[in-house]
């Protein structure tokens, strides 16, 4: 650890960094997402054209990344609430982070087929 820094590393700091990074990414996506949905007020064709690009394999991969960011932010957010409001929260913050990551991995495996299945079918045929 470099001298003269408040950053302490390990589970506490890195989960905080990841929470910030995923939060900022999700906010930027949300901004774009409201704009694309607003196209339903322009015409059905304008909306369907933009949504068609969301169904391409490349955007499916970005979507999987978005799901990853949202799931981590949601689960770690619940951990932050537990640290703040549960009397034993600070003592178990590390164990809770490893629980968050375990649940996150399970959910990400579960999201593989629903989010990326259509992209795999398009790239590899049938």
């Amino acid at each position: 650890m470099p001298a003269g820094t408040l950053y302490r590393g390990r589970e506490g700091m890195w989960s905080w960094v990841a929470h910030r990074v995923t939060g900022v990414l999700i906010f930027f996506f949300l901004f774009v997402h409201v704009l694309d949905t607003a196209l339903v007020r322009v015409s059905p064709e304008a909306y369907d054209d933009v949504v068609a690009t969301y169904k391409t394999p490349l955007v499916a991969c970005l979507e999987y990344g978005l799901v990853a960011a949202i799931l981590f932010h949601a689960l770690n957010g619940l951990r932050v609430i537990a640290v703040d409001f549960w009397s034993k929260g600070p003592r178990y913050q590390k164990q809770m982070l490893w629980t968050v990551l375990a649940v996150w991995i399970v959910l990400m495996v579960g999201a593989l087929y629903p989010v990326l299945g259509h992209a795999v079918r398009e790239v590899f045929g049938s």
Partner: protein
Amino acid sequence: MSAETSSAGVGPVEGVSLYDADNPAPVIEPPRKRTSKTPRTTRTNFELYGWLFMRLSGIVLVVLVLGHLIIQLVLDGGVSKIGFAFVAGRWASPFWQAWDLVMLWLAMLHGANGLRTVINDYAEKPKTRFWLKNLLYTATVFTVLLGTLVIFTFDPNIR
């Protein structure tokens, strides 16, 4: 030295005071003295309410956003089914209109407050902070109003 003089330095509680009318105690200024320029109140609980809002809206958003993801990306063929017709079908119901409206407002305010914190942490020049936050607030108000307008004025027979 008698016991009377040795206890004199302890103070008025334990013994005789060091000070009297002819030999007054030195005046200690309050560390943050109020002047004519000091506002009536110099602090509010805004940051406390912001902190509480992040946690309360966070819990609601976990339900609303994860439900949204399951409906949009998992059920009935995932993203492939989404189109104008799908949106029209869902917004025919006031329940899903309300769901999306609450989700829009909470997510935008939660995200805006989060980004405000990030800007305060990393933008060190007051001018940079001011302009970044102005941009953030403008984009937030625009997005919330646009989204609200779209939900309330949606017309399935637009053509």
